[in-house]
């Protein structure tokens, strides 16, 4: 049997200079999709249950739900779904891959570190879509809310997903398993109980406003609310804050992935 080599291709940067990176990148995405083929349906069910629990379950705590409360619950459900996938599920799975050797193995593959990250970001964006969809559906069915589906609202959903996933990866790659578990729990508990995501900011002490405006979670929810639910004003500061968090998360992940012993 003749053993072929892709040596010449590797040594000749002119050949397939544009095409080859895309082929390799698609190879990474495809590999991730196959590896996660059982996880994605499971995540869909979890996110559906999560969205229904917030829209229907949390609504039971409020005696009379007006339009404002309905919008907070609906937008909060979508936002928390994105946070849960990006900052809890993604780091947990990424941390598992660190422990079972996938992380180390990926570092030996002939692909750019940023390509590895981007492929995983795409997979996790796909993974969090069912939550977004179920949140929207629950809002329409439960509160008869009309959603504003525009290029801007879709872009904000995408930016929100990428930001949370980048933060999640940074947590997973940077922290040891125990600290990672603690950080993800903190984000989820903080997000559910102590962040004005499912209720207005004025219910919390004023000093918390200064913290929340620089953390990514509340600005993300405010942007979703203003674009998708047409409630409140669109803030470029919020957009700037979450883009900065996305960039920081991506760079931290990239540095950790590229770091040589």
């Amino acid at each position, binding site marked *: 049997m003749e053993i072929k080599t892709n*040596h010449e291709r590797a*040594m000749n940067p002119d050949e397939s200079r544009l095409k080859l990176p895309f082929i*390799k990148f698609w190879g990474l995405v495809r*590999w991730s999709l196959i590896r996660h083929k059982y996880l994605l349906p499971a995540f869909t069910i979890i996110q559906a249950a999560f969205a229904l629990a917030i829209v229907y379950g949390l609504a039971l705590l409020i005696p009379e739900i007006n339009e404002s409360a309905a919008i907070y619950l609906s937008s909060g459900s979508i936002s928390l779904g994105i946070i849960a996938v990006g900052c809890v599920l993604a780091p947990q799975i990424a941390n598992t891959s660190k422990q079972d050797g996938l992380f180390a193995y990926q570092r*030996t*593959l*002939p692909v750019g570190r940023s390509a590895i990250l981007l492929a995983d970001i795409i997979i996790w964006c796909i993974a969090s879509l069912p939550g977004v969809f179920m949140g929207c559906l629950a809002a329409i069915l439960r509160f008869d809310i009309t959603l504003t589906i525009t290029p801007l609202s879709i872009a904000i959903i995408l930016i929100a997903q990428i930001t949370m996933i980048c933060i999640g990866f940074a947590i997973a790659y940077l922290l040891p398993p125990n600290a990672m578990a603690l950080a993800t729990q903190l984000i989820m508990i903080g997000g559910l109980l102590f962040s004005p995501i499912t209720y207005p900011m004025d219910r919390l002490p004023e000093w918390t406003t200064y913290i929340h405006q620089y953390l990514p979670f509340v600005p993300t929810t405010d942007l979703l609310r203003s674009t998708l639910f047409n409630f409140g004003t669109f803030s470029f500061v919020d957009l700037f804050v979450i883009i900065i968090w996305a960039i920081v998360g991506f760079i931290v992940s990239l540095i950790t992935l590229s770091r*040589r012993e």
Partner: protein
Amino acid sequence: METMIKNKSNSNNLIIQSISKSYKKGSVKANCDISATICPNEVVAIIGHNGAGKTTLLNQIIGIVKPDQGDILFQGHSFVKNTKLARNLVSMMPQFHAPLSGVTLRQAIEAILHIRGISGKKTYVEEIINELRIDKWADRPGEKLSGGLQRLTSFAMSVVCPPPIILLDEPTNDVDPVRRKLVWNYMRKLARNGHIVLVVTHNLLEVEQYADRYLLLDQGRLIRDEKTGGINDQLVSNTLSIILNDWDSISNLPASIEAKYIEEEMKMILTLSHEQVPDAVQWLLNLMNQRKVVHYRLTSASLDTTYGGLTDGNQNES
């Protein structure tokens, strides 16, 4: 005594130049001043005790570990400076199994070809699966494969349509005797086709049988670099190991270069020159007639003797 092979200058050689690496502010030396030239067309085994620096050396070649000093050159390019190029030109089988959860054996091999950007995947995948005789398990999920099959899958992922340099970390561990031979033969085939094949292994018998050359590492230092074919030319070339059931009645030991007794194992190891072998065999036959021998082995495994003589595994285990 250090024995190093001098190779002719060739840009297709992998040149390791005075590589050193230490951890914990220099207190732990992973490897120290290692220099070697690895040529295409040869299978080179890296041997040494646990913690001798074998895996670190492979990781330095592929660019995961950055040497504190020294360089690794191939075709005039530095792998230390250009790790992206290193990953394009080097394929590595990790010490532990490649991650196979969620994918079948076939999908795992296909995935690597996709990631390497290689077309004609089906043919390559079928070829390697047939070569290693693992077609029966091709569609079984990775997590349900036995340890040996996971190891073979990892091997297949590394050698399917490979780049010029192939690094294999203990590829035959857990693999059955039949497929071990297939793995080594495949490595030889790769070498014949002009690939550089570097294999970390603990199996000295396989090294003697299949490798062209070995690098012996001890405490991060390269203490021997020589052809395996040269072993039999040495004076010390035969080892007779005997496990006895009656230790006290042993007498009239045959002439030997060295005789070792391992009391707790009831084992005697005689190192023999070629001339001493017939007398030793006669002595062994006498013992067997007296039913004092549980097990015996006469080998030309002088690498085993060399290895033990040059290193001290118990002290250096990590």
